């Protein structure tokens, strides 16, 4: 699903950001990407979105390769990725519902389908009752849920989260992370960059990749015995009402099909 092979990334001014990074995130995994600020987490995130190209090595994401992807193909890769940031990046002059709908409008989803999908994802993140609220009327945790709903709206294959709990208090952060676990339990691949070590330690069932000074210094999967079975996804907490799977087994939107 996401495969980095001997990736180097150098910036003209600040020098090397990634130094021979290789890892492979498989379909259905939830992976923590940890490390200090400046260790290269965000650079990895940007490379996966193909917002940047590696100086050497190759990044492969759901069939696209950083070596061969053309500029005009990048939007179609992005539609297969849902991205969530520390600072939410919601439009303040639009309601929660409109923020989610915006992602669908600008990728050419038919109008009739938009409201249906918006309702579905807002329900999934537990915010259908706040659909008409503006971001300023929502708490930090709620805002991040709207951002998650937006990321899910295009029915992506991978959810990328760059410090999604960084701006949230512990309680709200846990809530958002539980949401990620639910999403992962439904089969979506999740790559989450975080420096919240308490959170990582609290969930030893998930794979951890640690970066330091641009290098992978620890990968729990490589450290485990090679023949050991992959840890089972955590059970969904009872307090989360998850819609039945049929409702979420959504057809992947392919823009080339019109």
């Amino acid at each position, binding site marked *: 699903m996401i495969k980095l092979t001997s990736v180097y990334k150098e910036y003209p001014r600040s020098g090397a950001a990634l130094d021979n990074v290789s890892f492979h995130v498989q379909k259905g995994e939830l992976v923590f990407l940890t490390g200090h600020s400046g260790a290269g987490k965000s650079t990895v995130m940007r490379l996966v*979105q193909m917002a940047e190209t590696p100086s050497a090595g190759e990044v492969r994401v759901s069939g696209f390769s950083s070596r061969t992807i053309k*500029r*005009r193909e990048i*939007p*179609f*890769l*992005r*539609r297969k*990725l849902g*991205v969530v940031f520390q600072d939410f*990046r919601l*439009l303040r002059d639009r309601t929660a519902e409109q923020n989610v709908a*915006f*992602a669908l*409008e*600008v*990728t*050419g989803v038919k109008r009739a389908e938009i409201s249906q999908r918006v309702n579905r994802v807002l329900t999934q993140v537990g915010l259908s009752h706040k659909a008409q609220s503006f971001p300023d009327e929502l708490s930090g945790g709620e805002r991040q849920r709207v951002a998650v709903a*937006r990321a899910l*709206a*295009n029915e992506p294959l991978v959810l990328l989260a760059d410090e999604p709990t960084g701006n949230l208090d512990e309680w709200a952060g846990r809530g958002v992370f539980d949401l990620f676990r639910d999403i992962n339990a439904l089969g979506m691949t999740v790559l989450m960059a975080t420096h919240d070590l308490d959170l990582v330690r609290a969930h030893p069932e998930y794979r951890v990749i640690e970066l330091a000074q641009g290098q992978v210094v620890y990968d729990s999967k490589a450290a485990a015995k090679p023949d050991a079975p992959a840890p089972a996804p955590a059970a969904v907490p009872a307090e989360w009402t998850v819609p039945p799977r049929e409702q979420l087994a959504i057809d992947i939107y392919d823009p080339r099909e019109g």
Partner: protein
Amino acid sequence: MPYALREALSAFRRSPLLAFLSIIAIGFSLFVIGLFGLTAWNIGRAIEKVEEKVEIVAYLDDATTPSQLELAQQEVRGLPAVLELRYVTKFDALASAREEMPEFQDVFSDLDNNPLPASLEIRMKPGSRTPDAVKRVAERLRAYPFVEDVRYGREWLDKIYQIRRLAGGAATMIGAAFALVAAIIIATAVRIAVFARREEISIMRLVGATDGFVQRPFLLEGVMTGLMGGALAALLTWGSYRVLSATMFRIEMIPGQWMVVVVVVGTVFGFLSSMVAVRRHLEAV
């Protein structure tokens, strides 16, 4: 309503002052060009009227035989630049001299024989009234042994031609300068619009909107601005024509096709300016 059109219209609603300024800027730039067009058109018409009078006169030797004359007339009529050739006999020359200069009536009537030579008067085709073309025909006439002298208004012809070229050059330069100003104002408007919407644009990119989709509202906005600017310029030009005609002197309105060109140029100009600006500024978002 398609997304791009809705967004382009909302840009007018969101910052009406900027949109208004852009339209005014394009409108006035094209208006200046339109005024020059109006002036150039009328100068051109005036010059054409003068140039119609460009005439080459070849004075003939009295000993010229009718067969020589016939041959020469045929040859000169065959030249591509020649519109019309008229043979003026000695008798005609004297008659018109009497008519044009009645004060010398006595002198002309007391003559034993007619001192005025016969001549060939040649008028040039429009487009061949340049000094060079006229000179070539004159040289050709001078080559006949029975042609005594060739006259044409060489000096003033050169001058008229210079004035015409100068007017054309000045119009082009000033028009270009104003067009540049309009381009800068449009680019600034686009820059502000892109800046005001940079969050939206970065989210659009994030969720996988294509470059074309991101650019379309800005381009459409440029086209609409240009179209309205062009229409404003056409209106102002027409207004000036009416006012000038009514108050100062009779002038001719420039042809309708030119006005259409003004509007089309405005539209294309708005489109191109916003395209350059949007490409440049979207890179930075």
